[in-house]
């Protein structure tokens, strides 16, 4: 009787340990789904050139950009097809957690708040932040102190907004939902400067003679952009990191950045 009891408890312990260790391995349900369907579904928000933006390719509406090139490489490494889903930036992480997409690539900074709901790959691109002003004012803004009491724009709910609040002391923050609207305000002298990511800023400077980048130093403490994966899929994160390592080693990501910047210069 005692012996039987011990046996049962022992069995139970073994079963529980195995169960926990399997769960601890990260289940990898997303990976299984990708393998089953042969498709990697990537969520992105197609209004953030040069990371991802819409373009007509052979007469068809297509999303292109740095992130899309990276996604193509990841799909290639996994030997599956790539499918892009374009949604609102705000809704990206929830469609990841409801399994509507497998991964999210959208120039997303892995900040603490987002890390609570999803896992991130390693950082694939360290975007530096830049301060953009009107070309005629370029000489006026050299240090952070020059922006004191000036109106500085940033996109609502982004890392840049945090930068204005925390690093530009005395600057008045103007946050709007869309970068084009902020650029228009800058051009029309409604704001004096604009904090944006460098690849985005250089796109605007290249396409607009009346805009210029300053040397005002601003830092980004989230480190750059990473790929988001649903929690509990460590095998998928590993797979993505492997692809990213390869891309970074071969300098392909810098090439993608350059390509994306050249592709959509309209002049």
């Amino acid at each position, binding site marked *: 009787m005692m012996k039987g009891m011990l046996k049962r408890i022992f069995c139970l312990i073994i079963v529980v340990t195995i169960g926990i260790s399997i769960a601890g391995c990260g289940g990898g349900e997303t990976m299984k789904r990708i393998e089953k369907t042969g498709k990697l579904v990537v969520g992105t928000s197609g209004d953030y050139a040069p990371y991802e933006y*819409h373009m*007509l390719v052979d007469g068809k509406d297509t999303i292109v950009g740095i992130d899309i090139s990276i996604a193509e490489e990841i799909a290639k490494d996994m030997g599956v097809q790539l499918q892009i889903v374009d949604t*609102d930036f705000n809704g990206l992480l929830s469609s990841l957690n409801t399994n509507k997409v497998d991964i999210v690539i959208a120039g997303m900074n892995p900040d603490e708040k987002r890390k609570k709901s999803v896992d991130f790959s390693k950082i694939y691109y360290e975007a530096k932040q830049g301060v953009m002003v009107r070309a005629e004012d370029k000489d006026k803004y050299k240090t952070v102190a020059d922006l004191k009491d000036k109106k500085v724009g940033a996109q609502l709910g982004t890392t840049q907004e945090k930068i204005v609040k925390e690093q530009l002391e005395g600057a008045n923050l103007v946050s709007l939902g869309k970068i084009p*609207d902020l*650029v*228009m305000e800058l051009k029309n002298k409604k704001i004096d400067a604009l904090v944006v990511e460098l690849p985005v800023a250089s796109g605007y400077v290249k*396409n607009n003679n009346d805009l210029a980048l300053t040397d005002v130093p601003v830092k980004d403490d989230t480190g750059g952009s990473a790929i988001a994966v649903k929690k509990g899929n460590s095998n998928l994160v590993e797979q993505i990191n492997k692809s990213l390592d390869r891309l970074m080693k071969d300098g392909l990501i810098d090439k993608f950045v350059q390509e994306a910047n050249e592709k959509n210069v*309209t002049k």
Partner: protein
Amino acid sequence: MDFGFLSEYWYYFVSGTVNTIVIAILTVILGVIIGTGIALMKISHNKIFKAVASSYIEFIRGTPLLVQITLFFYLISLPEFHIFGLEMERFIPGVIAMSVNSGAYVAEIIRAGIQAVDKGQMEAARSIGFTQGQAMRYIVLPQALRNILPALGNEFVVVIKESSVLSVISISELMRNTNIIQGAIYRPFEPLAITAVIYFVLTFSLTRLLGYAERRMRTSD
């Protein structure tokens, strides 16, 4: 000003314009259906119907369309599916919100149109043996239609313009597509200028068309 991007991005203006027109037509049709129901409830003699219709009209007209659209979008959650490349899980709540909004205005248009028909018409119809419903259907409504149609045309114009608010829930109508282009070409102003022209052409030609129809109706008196 540099419009060189048009060669690459014209498609977005075209598809956006088509979607805007489709949305406007659907909204007006649904809005008329809702509006007729609400208007009939409002002029009925049933107190409950009257109260429901009045509160509907007051509430919808007293809150901004932007708020209504975002509310409907969060309240109605549909599975993702596409028809003609349109994301229905966004399109359907958007059109419903627009229709519910338009319905309140249409209801007031219809009510005013019906009440503008001389009371004697209804009384005469009743006195020769029509029921209330028959009199409304065969005598009053056909005459009310003449008052209602021009105002409905104006509502169509309003809906075309207001549908631009749908861009906040990423329905790819004209305004949303403009935002896409603005972001892609790094030039915010030019796409917006083109969009303004497109909206104007749409509404202006519609107003002209309505003016023509109105004149034709008057001559048929």
